[in-house]
C-alpha cells in the first residue's frame, strides 16, 4: 500500500469529503493561500475556491462561533484552531455554545462542526504553543474528542468526524505531521469509541495516545528484549472512550500503565485508570501507573522541554515497576 505522511492523510480526507459534500467548508487562520501553518489544508483553496476555503482574521471566537451559527443553519464547518493553546480566547463559543446547544434546545439542533487543532511539545514553541489540553475537552459533555496517532487513523477518524452530527474536537499532535504510514486511497471511516490495539502483549497493558503511542511502541520493543510482553492500546478517541477494550486488555495482562504528554494532574490518565479500577480492580496484580508530564507549563529550552516530555526511558521504567 502507498504511504502518506500524517499531514497528507488529513489533507486527503479533507479533499475527499469536500468533493463529496458541498455543505462542507474550511475556515481558519492561514488555511487558504498559505495552506495551513502545518500544510494540512494545502491545495484546498485552489481546488474548492474562496467560498469553501476561508482565510479568517486572527479571531478565534468568531472562527468557532461562526461555525456554530453556520452548522445550526445547515452547513458542515471544518474550522482550524491553529494551536489548542489559543482556545482560551474562544472557549465560550466551544463549551457554552457549540457543546451545549443541542441539549439546551431539547435535542432540536444539529451541530456538525469539526474543530481541528494542534497540540504538543517538541518544537521549542514554549508554554503557549505546546500544550496538550485534551483533558479540558473531554470534561465537557456535548463534545467528542479525537486524538489520532497514525496517518491511517488520522484519515479515517477525520472522515468520521466530518460526517458526525456533533461538535468534534480533532487534536493533531504537531510532532506527528511528518510521520509516514500506509493509507488507503479510497475514503474510509473509523468509528469513534473504538480503541486500537497497536501491539499485542501479555504482561502489561500500556494505554497511550498521539505521540505517546509511538513512544510506547518503542518502549515495547525494548522491553521485549528483556522478555516483557507489552500490549499497547491506543484509545484514538477520548470522548467517547472505549473502556471495554482497555479493561479487556487489563483482564488479560493484569497490569496497567497509562501514558500521555499532558500534565499528569487532572489528565486523561486519571479517568482511564479510574475506569479500569472501577471495572476490573480484582484483575490488577499491581497498582496502575501514569507516565505524564510534570505539573508545570511547557518550558522553552530544548534541554528542559525534553525533560518535560515523557520519554521512552520513563515508560520502560514504569512498566518494569509494575511487572516486578
Amino acid at each position: 500500500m502507498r504511504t502518506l505522511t500524517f499531514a497528507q492523510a488529513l489533507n486527503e480526507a479533507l479533499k475527499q469529503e469536500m468533493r463529496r459534500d458541498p455543505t462542507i467548508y474550511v475556515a481558519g487562520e492561514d488555511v487558504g493561500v498559505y495552506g495551513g501553518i502545518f500544510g494540512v489544508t494545502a491545495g484546498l483553496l485552489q481546488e474548492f475556491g474562496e467560498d469553501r476555503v476561508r482565510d479568517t482574521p486572527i479571531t478565534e471566537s468568531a472562527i468557532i462561533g461562526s461555525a456554530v451559527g453556520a452548522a445550526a443553519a445547515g452547513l458542515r464547518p471544518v474550522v482550524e484552531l491553529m494551536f489548542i493553546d489559543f482556545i482560551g480566547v474562544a472557549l465560550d463559543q466551544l463549551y457554552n455554545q457549540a457543546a451545549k446547544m443541542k441539549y439546551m434546545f431539547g435535542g432540536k439542533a444539529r451541530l456538525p462542526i469539526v474543530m481541528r487543532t494542534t497540540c504538543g511539545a517538541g518544537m521549542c514553541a514554549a508554554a503557549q504553543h505546546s500544550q496538550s489540553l485534551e483533558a479540558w475537552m473531554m470534561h465537557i459533555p456535548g463534545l467528542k474528542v479525537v486524538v489520532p496517532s497514525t496517518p491511517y487513523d488520522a484519515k479515517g477518524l477525520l472522515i468520521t468526524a466530518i460526517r458526525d452530527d456533533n461538535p468534534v474536537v480533532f487534536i493533531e499532535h504537531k510532532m506527528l505531521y511528518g510521520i509516514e504510514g500506509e493509507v488507503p486511497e479510497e475514503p474510509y471511516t473509523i468509528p469513534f469509541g473504538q480503541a486500537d490495539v497497536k501491539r499485542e502483549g501479555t504482561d502489561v497493558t500500556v494505554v497511550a495516545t498521539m505521540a505517546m503511542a509511538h513512544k510506547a511502541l518503542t518502549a515495547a520493543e525494548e522491553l521485549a528484549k528483556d522478555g516483557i510482553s507489552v500490549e499497547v492500546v491506543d484509545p484514538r478517541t477520548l470522548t467517547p472512550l472505549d473502556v471495554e477494550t482497555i479493561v479487556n486488555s487489563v483482564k488479560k495482562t493484569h497490569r496497567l500503565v497509562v501514558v500521555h504528554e499532558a500534565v499528569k494532574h487532572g489528565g486523561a490518565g486519571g479517568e482511564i485508570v479510574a475506569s479500569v479500577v472501577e471495572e476490573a480492580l480484582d484483575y490488577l496484580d499491581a497498582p496502575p501507573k501514569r507516565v505524564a508530564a510534570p505539573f508545570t507549563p511547557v518550558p522553552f529550552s530544548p534541554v528542559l522541554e525534553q525533560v518535560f516530555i515523557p520519554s521512552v526511558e520513563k515508560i520502560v521504567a514504569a512498566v518494569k515497576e509494575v511487572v516486578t
Partner: protein
Amino acid sequence: MSTDTEKLLWMYTNMLKIRRFEEKVGEFFAAGKIPGFVHLYIGEEAVATGVCAHLRKDDYITSTHRGHGHLISKGGDLKLMMAELFGKRTGYCKGKGGSMHIADVDLGILGANGIVGGGPPIATGAALAAKYRGTDGVAVCFLGDGASNQGTFHEGVNLASIWKLPAIFVVENNMYGISLPQTRSMRVQDIADRAAAYDIPGFVVDGNDVIAVYEAAGEAIQRARAGEGPALIECKTYRYRGHFEGDPMVYRTREEEEMWRAKDPISRFETKLMEMGVLNEAQAREINERILAQVEEAVRFAEESPWPAPEEVLEDVYTV
C-alpha cells in the same frame, strides 16, 4: 408612513402580546411557579417587533438572556414558551433550557443565550450559511449595550463586515448592564458610532418608537438581502423591570423610570394608530382580550403539562 394597515396592526398586537406574556411570567415567577432566572422584556417591545416585522421564517435570529420578546416576534408559540419556563417536558426545549435558552431552530431562532455577547459570532455564522447557499436570507443578532463591550461583538461584526455577510446587529441599549450605567461602561454616547470601526452603516433609533425601529431595520435588512453586507442598529430603550425579577434596582431613580414610562412604546403607538384611524377603542379592547386569552391558554397548557421523566436528563447530549 406607507406601511400597510395589516403590518401596523400586527406590530401593535405583537407588542401587546409580549407585554401581556411578560406580565404573566412576572406574576408566576413571584408566585414561585417559574424557577430560575427570569429577565423580562417589558418596555423594550418595539425593538423586537419593529425588526422582526421584516423577517421571514427562513431568516435567523440570535437572542439574549432577555429573549422572550424576540421569540414571540419571530413566531414563537406561547404555549411551548410558557411550558419551557415552567420546566415542563412539553416546552420548547423539553424543560432542558428554560428562559435563557429557549429556541426554535425550525423558526430560525438559534436560541436565547445565557452568555452576554454569546450571540454575535453565531449570528455571523448563520449569515454565512445564508450567503453560502446563495439565498437572500439574513441573520439578526439581538444584543444589549453590555454585550457591545464584549470581545465577541467586535469579532462577530468584524468578520461579518469583511465577508460582507447579511448580518444585522441590533443593540438594545437599555442603558444598564445589570447595575452599571452606559456612561460608566463606554465613552461613546451612541453605540452605533462603533459601526464606523467596521465600515458598516450605523443607525441610532428611538427604540420606543416601533415605526422608527421598523424603518431603520427595513433599510438595514434590505441592504443585507441585496448583498451589501451588515449594519448596526442601536435602539435606545429602557427595561421597566429590573435586570432580573427580584432586582432591587438601587442603581436608578424612580423619576427616571417614570420618564421612560411616559414614552411607553405601546401606548404611544396605540395613540398614533387611533389618530391615523387604523385602530379604535373597541378594536384595541378586542385585541387585548384575545391576547389575554392566549396567555391564559399558555399558562393552562404549562400547568397541565407533565414534568420531564428523570431518565430524560441523559437524552439529547449528542446526535446519534
